[in-house]
């Protein structure tokens, strides 16, 4: 395996209407590393994640496990980079949960006799009962839909997992469960989130993004404790760090 799971060099991206979404992004993520991308809404976090599997392509270089996306084998790259979207309704488009989870492996031409075993295992891993497999995703609660969307990606056994706001709109129990599931995964993790407590508990490294740029990159606890940095980029020091009293610049 390459030393760097993700290498992004001078990445720029503008939306078709001319809005600059990413400006000069340089980011290296080592294999097995867990990185949280934080920043205000519209900072470019989701846009950056969509560059990891070539769904969006801007100017600059994005390398996944040593392979450049530009001109690379997108099928192989999309097998390696699992992307979980913010709204599970965008991701669960098949008539049943089983088919949604099987959609990726079928596209990757994994032998059909292996797919049901994989689907059942991954549904178990994310804590979904086997009874949901033949249900439509309209029948699931938001927490279950989020887990199904995660299962739909984990079943492809990606080396890199990109999660976009995985805990948004979840109740505390479902949030805690999802954090436990994600925390137990061996993949390299890039997590775009507003949930700073989750970033603190899951990711040793934090990247602060704002207006399409990276403003800080370092130890999660240290950056989240910097009240000025948080304030400047529309964030807040997490409550758990405030109560511990190790906030700088307050």
């Amino acid at each position: 395996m390459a030393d760097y799971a993700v290498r992004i060099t001078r990445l720029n991206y503008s939306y078709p209407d001319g809005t600059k979404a990413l400006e000069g992004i340089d980011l290296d993520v080592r294999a097995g590393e867990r990185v949280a991308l934080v920043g205000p809404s519209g900072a470019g976090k989701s846009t950056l994640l969509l560059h990891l599997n070539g769904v969006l392509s801007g100017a600059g270089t994005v390398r996944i496990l040593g392979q450049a996306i530009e001109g690379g084998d997108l099928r192989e790259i999309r097998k390696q980079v699992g992307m979980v979207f913010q709204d599970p309704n965008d991701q669960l488009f098949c008539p049943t949960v089983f088919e949604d989870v099987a959609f990726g492996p079928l596209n990757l031409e994994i032998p059909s006799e292996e797919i049901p075993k994989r689907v059942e295992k991954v549904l178990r891993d994310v804590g979904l009962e086997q009874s949901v497999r033949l249900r439509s995703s309209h029948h699931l609660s938001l927490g279950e839909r989020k887990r199904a969307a995660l299962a739909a990606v984990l079943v492809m056994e990606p080396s890199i997992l990109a999660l976009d706001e995985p805990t948004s709109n979840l109740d505390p129990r479902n949030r805690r469960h999802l954090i436990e599931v994600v925390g137990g995964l061996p993949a390299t993790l890039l997590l775009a989130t507003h949930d700073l407590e989750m970033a603190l508990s899951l990711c040793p490294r934090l990247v602060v993004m704002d207006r399409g740029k990276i403003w800080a990159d370092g130890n999660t606890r240290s950056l989240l404790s910097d009240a000025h940095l948080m304030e400047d980029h529309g964030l807040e020091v997490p409550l758990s760090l405030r109560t511990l009293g190790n906030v700088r610049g307050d």
Partner: protein
Amino acid sequence: MKHSFIDRYSALDSPLHLLDARTKLVGFTVLIAAVLWIPPGKPFAFFAYFFLTAILMGISQIPLTYIAARTLVILPFVLLAGLALPWKTGAGFALFSTLLLRSSLCLLILILLTNTTRFVELLRGLRRMGCPAILVMNLGFLYRYLFVLTEEVMRMRQARDCRRVGRARAAAEMKLLGSMLGTLLLRSFERAERMYQAMLSRGSCGEFPILAPRRFTWRDPAFLAGLGFFIWVAGYLN
């Protein structure tokens, strides 16, 4: 929010449920065509087809109350169509009863088709019978996202109701409705874009691959042969 699914009883385990979707698509389409073919003033033929449909309903194990409730949905449309009939000439009643019987029978057959076959199986059946992939995929998305859109409309209506007191004038109401529809359309475009990105992310090339499709068994040709025989006998006796 509670949704009404057209394939609500498709997970039952009756002999009709075990048939391949293609068998049911062909069989029930032929049955509908035969019902439409019955000329007015042939009560025996209608009785025969009602009898057959009743047997199929019994075999399907779908609750009668559900079937009855669904069938009533068609009544307003039939009554509306009945307004255009030539009531003054005396042929109105015969035509109206034929219209009512035909539409009720067709609806009963469609209820049987959709409640003995999961929607996904129907789509697969259509695809395997040569229906274009893009059409089948769009039907699938329509069914999947109709509920999401319905919920979105409900939320927009609630948001509207929370910010107004009393009824607005008709013109203002229409203007509001227009802007709500426009917003819904834009949101649908955005959702479609995100869905496409999600599909690409999981290696899609535009096709919906099928895992372990249901195979033809001896039941399928037997069902089609039985149905064909019944239609032939009913036609012969008429």
